[in-house]
């Protein structure tokens, strides 16, 4: 049932917001061109959420959660932004960002695996900690060295994003789907004690998963900075919630042990279309609603999260 619910929801959403936005079409070619550019833009805009969503799916499969993703991306972008601009940026800032991102991810993994802190508490702590480091690095400044780096803006365009996301989704997904690693993660999320008895290196797997989220946070930081071209210490707050809502909508259970990457893909698009649509409907909202329509986003994200978790829990209970 879920297979067609999400694409349908996405189409309904897009249709609704297109109607509200008041776009006028002349002929079918116009419609096709509009939606081609719309979905291209949507993909490019939602690249960070999409990339992090794949990582978050794996994390949720292990019955964990990572609230620090937003702060992590912001911190990586902030540290990269402190390096001087120019062609040299490619071999100073970019590798630095990569190493930092993986280290941040492994820090989360280490706290969760070796110190046995509940994932939500550990990453709530690192969310604040990494955000604090953002302020240490940048202060109140807003930096934008990314504009003058040759070839950098490619990561913010449709082609660049499509290749990065495609590489992660198709390349990573193909290796992942039939791997022993995936089954070990599923087992680890389903029953940790059983996994330990089955000689699965539980702690190492957890570190690997959170490290992978760090790696994806680096890719997300590339796409984000290339598109927005500037970063400040408070950018990307609230990103983690969008990611979690998207993943949960995609059918991944928060209690662990089940999850789907394709579901996450559609979940992210639904959340991103909501985001874009509410922004596009600002003028309509001002005329017809007693409140700012952008504030509706918080309410809808919260409601979607509860609804998604509830549906997933019920689906899991039915199976048993």
């Amino acid at each position, binding site marked *: 049932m879920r297979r067609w619910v999400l694409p349908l929801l996405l189409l309904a959403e897009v249709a609704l917001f297109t109607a509200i936005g008041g776009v006028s079409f002349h002929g079918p070619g116009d419609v096709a061109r509009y939606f081609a550019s719309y979905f291209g833009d949507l993909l490019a805009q939602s690249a960070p959420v999409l990339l992090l969503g794949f990582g978050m799916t794996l994390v949720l499969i292990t019955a964990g959660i990572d609230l620090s993703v937003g702060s992590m991306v912001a911190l990586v972008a902030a540290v990269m932004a402190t390096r001087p601009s120019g062609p040299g940026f490619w071999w100073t800032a970019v590798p630095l960002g990569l190493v930092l991102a993986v280290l941040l991810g492994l820090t989360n993994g280490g706290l969760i695996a070796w110190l046995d802190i509940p994932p939500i508490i550990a990453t709530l702590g690192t969310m604040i900690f990494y955000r604090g480091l953002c302020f240490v690095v940048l202060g109140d400044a807003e930096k934008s060295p990314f504009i003058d780096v040759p070839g950098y803006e490619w990561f913010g365009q449709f082609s660049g994003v499509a290749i990065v996301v495609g590489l992660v989704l198709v390349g990573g997904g193909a290796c992942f789907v039939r791997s022993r690693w995936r089954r070990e993660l599923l087992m680890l999320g389903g029953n940790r004690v059983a996994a330990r008895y089955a000689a699965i290196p539980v702690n190492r797997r957890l570190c690997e998963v959170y490290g992978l989220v760090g790696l994806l946070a680096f890719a997300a930081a590339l796409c984000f900075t290339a598109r927005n071209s500037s970063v400040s210490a408070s950018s990307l707050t609230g990103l983690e919630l969008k990611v979690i809502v998207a993943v949960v909508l995609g059918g991944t259970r928060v209690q662990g042990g089940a999850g789907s990457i394709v579901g996450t893909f559609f979940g992210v698009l639904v959340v991103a279309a909501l985001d874009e649509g509410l922004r596009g409907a600002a003028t309509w909202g001002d005329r017809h609603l007693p409140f700012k329509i952008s504030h509706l986003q*918080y309410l809808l994200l919260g409601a979607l999260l509860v609804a998604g978790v509830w549906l997933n829990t019920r689906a899991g209970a039915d199976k048993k």
Partner: protein
Amino acid sequence: MLTRLSPYLRQRLAFLVAGNVVLLVAIALLLKQGASFSDVLERCGPDVAPTVLAGLGMTGVIFTGAIDISIASIIVVAGTVFGILVQRGGSPAACYAACVLVTWLLSMVNGWLVRGLRVPAIIITLAGLTFYRGLALVIADMAIPSFTGNISVPDEAFHGPGKVYGGWILVAVLAGALAWEAFARVPRRWLALGSSEEACRLAGLNPGRILQSAFCASGLFLGLAGLIFVTRVQAIEPARMALGFELQVIGAVVLGGTNIFGGEGCFAGTVLGALFLYFTAQVLVYAGVNPYFQEAVTGALIIGVIGLDCALHRRRKLLEELA
């Protein structure tokens, strides 16, 4: 009362008392000429009151094995309602009552949702974290024409609980809560639920009702915390107010020796934990540390303490898991 505490908790309380004394001595040594130590102590009461009061409620919820991370957003909704009523010309008493009532009601809603949907409390309240903040913004948009992001409350008559009586409210509630914890049956039932839901049911207790009573008590404590929080500021900003407050409160609770998985803990630890976090921040201020570093240091401190706590519990938990 102390005889009921486990050796682990007694150790933690001793550590916190010693730590707080050391931090106070450090503050006394760092004080510049012209600043007096009694001022520091006097300010401490109202400053720490919201964290301690919210912490008492959170302690109860964590006793049962649940958690509530939407408390900051709940305070924001209460603050918004308070601000709107003030602008509409409500009397101070009515505004205060509305503030506490809204907080209590939203806490109860959290409890109902956790019970009714059978979803982990942390996920429900994570949704609440964003939902309630959005709710506050929408309410403010609708109730105040040309709402620009903050509701200013300039009249000093509305700052009583926060600026004048904060310390006294704290002392009174604290005394009541500690006595209640020592003699009443309800907090022990929360602990029982956190230890084992199954055992609770077999003993003839109703787990759902016990959970609800924890959220109910948390709502009342949080209402007072929110009242003090809201009446301390000149302007209420729904989008930014109380960001990160929940982590500070959870940090204080866990620092105080309450087991994050439920079933073990005490109110006194939470109070000492909140004081420890507060004095640490004050030491940073008096030592002249760059304010940009403060968030990072606080975050690192909380992770460090919780990490230490979990590492200490780890051995016992592993044995339980494999038994």
